[in-house]
């Protein structure tokens, strides 16, 4: 400033400054304006420089991310718009990372499923082929062994069909377009209807079923066909594993907002370490120990899918020679918070 005035005084050629100033008022006005503008620009640059640098940093990181490096995140510095932007971007990369991870997991599950299915399909198929070949080529000693071969092939065919049916059911349940047709039904009636199908089998293996009702009527909203299938699988599981235990117990009770069904069998407890895995597809508890097991290994995975579709919970507990499958279903069939 002093420098400018000094120049002005020089330029004014020692005339009284006031006269010179008055004569050149427009010049002075322009000069001061220019000075102010310059000052503003400097201030603006100083002020925005840090922002520009941060912006550059965001830009660089974004470029890096766009090349597929999702592990990086932008530091969130202050609480202004740019920091908000950085926060949102970090969030987005996190979500991307999660969904990519999920995709990989799905891929792995799918591959495992295919491997397991191929194995489970091939085993009975090989044995069917073997026996049928013996029959076709006439390599049997007498009528009795012929009948035996045919019987084995037939029973393997049946287990193959069970497996294919279950697999079909399972993939249908897990496809996204699956519709749940909910209506109001009586849970007791449904369970009785499921049990009817097992009556001859229970008689055959000498088991007795017992109903324990805490409430006389329990009505819930659910898909009757799916729920019937679910209970059918659980009862099937219980009679398969518990046929030496004499009793098949079914307990029903009502709590605040849910119905609780417990299906209990005795004998052949499931080892504790296997309990968490039991609802995974193709999980069969130690095959060698259960010679009667004719399940496909998908039955309990189907149970879980159906219970999930009704926003319920299915758990299993096995101790003191007692295995309890517990299903909790909300009455209205809606998600409970």
């Amino acid at each position: 400033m002093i420098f400018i005035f000094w120049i002005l005084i020089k330029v004014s050629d020692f005339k009284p400054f006031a006269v010179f100033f008055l004569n050149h008022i427009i010049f002075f006005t322009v000069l001061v304006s220019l000075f102010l503008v310059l000052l503003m620009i400097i201030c603006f640059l100083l002020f925005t420089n840090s922002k520009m640098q941060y912006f550059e940093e965001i830009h660089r990181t974004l470029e890096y991310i766009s090349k597929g490096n999702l592990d990086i995140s932008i530091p969130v510095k202050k609480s202004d718009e740019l920091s908000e932007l950085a926060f949102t971007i970090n969030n987005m990369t996190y979500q991307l990372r999660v969904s990519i991870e999920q995709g990989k997991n799905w891929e792995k599950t799918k591959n495992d499923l295919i491997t397991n299915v191929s194995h489970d399909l091939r085993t009975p198929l090989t044995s069917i082929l073997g026996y049928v070949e013996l029959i076709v080529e006439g390599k049997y000693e007498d009528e009795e062994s012929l009948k035996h071969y045919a019987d084995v092939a037939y029973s393997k065919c049946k287990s193959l069909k069970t497996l294919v049916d279950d697999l079909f059911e399972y993939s249908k349940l897990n496809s996204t377009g699956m519709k749940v047709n909910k209506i109001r039904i009586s849970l007791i009636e449904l369970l009785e209807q499921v049990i009817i199908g097992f009556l001859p089998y229970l008689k055959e293996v000498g088991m007795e079923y017992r109903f324990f009702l805490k409430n006389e009527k329990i009505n819930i909203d659910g898909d009757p066909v799916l729920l019937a299938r679910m209970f059918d699988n659980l009862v099937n599981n219980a009679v398969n594993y518990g046929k030496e235990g004499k009793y098949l117990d079914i307990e029903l009770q009502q709590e605040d907002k849910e119905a609780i069904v417990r299906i209990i069998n005795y004998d052949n407890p499931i080892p504790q370490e296997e309990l968490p895995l039991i609802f995974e597809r193709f999980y069969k508890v130690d095959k060698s120990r259960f010679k009667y097991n004719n399940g496909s290994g998908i039955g309990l995975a189907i149970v879980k899918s159906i219970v999930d579709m009704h926003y319920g919970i299915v758990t299993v507990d096995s101790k003191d020679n007692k295995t309890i499958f517990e299903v909790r279903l909300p009455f209205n069939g809606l998600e409970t918070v």
Partner: protein
Amino acid sequence: MTPTEFEILLLLAESQGRVFSAEEIFKRVWKEKYFGSNNTVMVHIWRLREKIEDNPKEPKIIETVWGVGYKIES
């Protein structure tokens, strides 16, 4: 076929298409009070099916209406 089984069949056949709950069947055939669940109806339904169905495990005549009851479709 026992008289009771016949009565159940008659009840369902006379109102074709109508669904009867186990409770209703029990009250109309046995004419007694029903408490929550009763395995008598279940056993009779099964025996009836054994006698009249081709495959009692997949009944075509006495149909199951899941969670509601039983019916004979017209």
